[in-house]
């Protein structure tokens, strides 16, 4: 098994991701971890809420993993996303990639998070000190 995809309303388990990625034939691993930041565009954020269209999001995440395995010289990839309410410092997303050499791991990891933000049907609502907003909804 070369890819592992998960959407969860519980905290994401980085050790589970690492156990999946670590392998005898890997010399390099890259992990991208998104965390909830305390501010956006100069405004304080109190917390976030993530909603997904889960069945479709899983399919889109699998497409990203398949494309990464095809386009980059990597051995395995995991894409985990959390949904529900998240506080500052909590982790909405983890992407792990394993490869023989480091350049492919970096490139594939970056490709995966960039594409996830463009195609996967997951929506983030920011709760600011003065109100709330669905991120990127409006021009």
């Amino acid at each position, binding site marked *: 098994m070369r890819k592992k995809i998960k959407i969860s309303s519980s905290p994401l388990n980085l050790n589970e991701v690492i156990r999946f990625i670590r392998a005898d034939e890997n010399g390099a691993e890259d992990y991208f971890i998104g965390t909830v930041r305390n501010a956006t565009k100069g405004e304080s954020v109190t917390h976030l809420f993530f909603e997904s*269209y889960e069945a*479709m999001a899983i399919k889109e995440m699998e497409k990203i993993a398949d494309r990464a395995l095809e386009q980059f010289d990597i051995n395995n990839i995991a894409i985990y996303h959390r949904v529900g309410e998240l506080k500052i410092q909590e982790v909405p997303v983890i992407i792990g990639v394993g490869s023989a050499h480091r350049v492919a791991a970096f490139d594939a990891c970056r490709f995966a998070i960039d594409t996830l933000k463009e195609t996967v049907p997951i929506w983030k609502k920011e709760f600011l000190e003065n109100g709330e907003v669905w991120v*990127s909804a409006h021009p």
Partner: protein
Amino acid sequence: MKVLTFGITKDIIGSRSLEVPSNLALTVGELRQYVISKYPKMEKLKSLAIAVNEEYATDDKRLIESDVVALIPPVSGG
């Protein structure tokens, strides 16, 4: 035809789904027009994609009653 709503489209419509008369939405493009005409706030969104059976669909895609259809406002995961 039942249309699922997510994110800001759920807030605009005020419900997790929307019932659309099938004869008013024979294609994905017609469905978008119907939704925008009924909920003008939808026109203010940066984009409004439509998924059919959990895949992004183009405007000329024809809809049938058994399709699983969903409104996909601009995504913001990660």
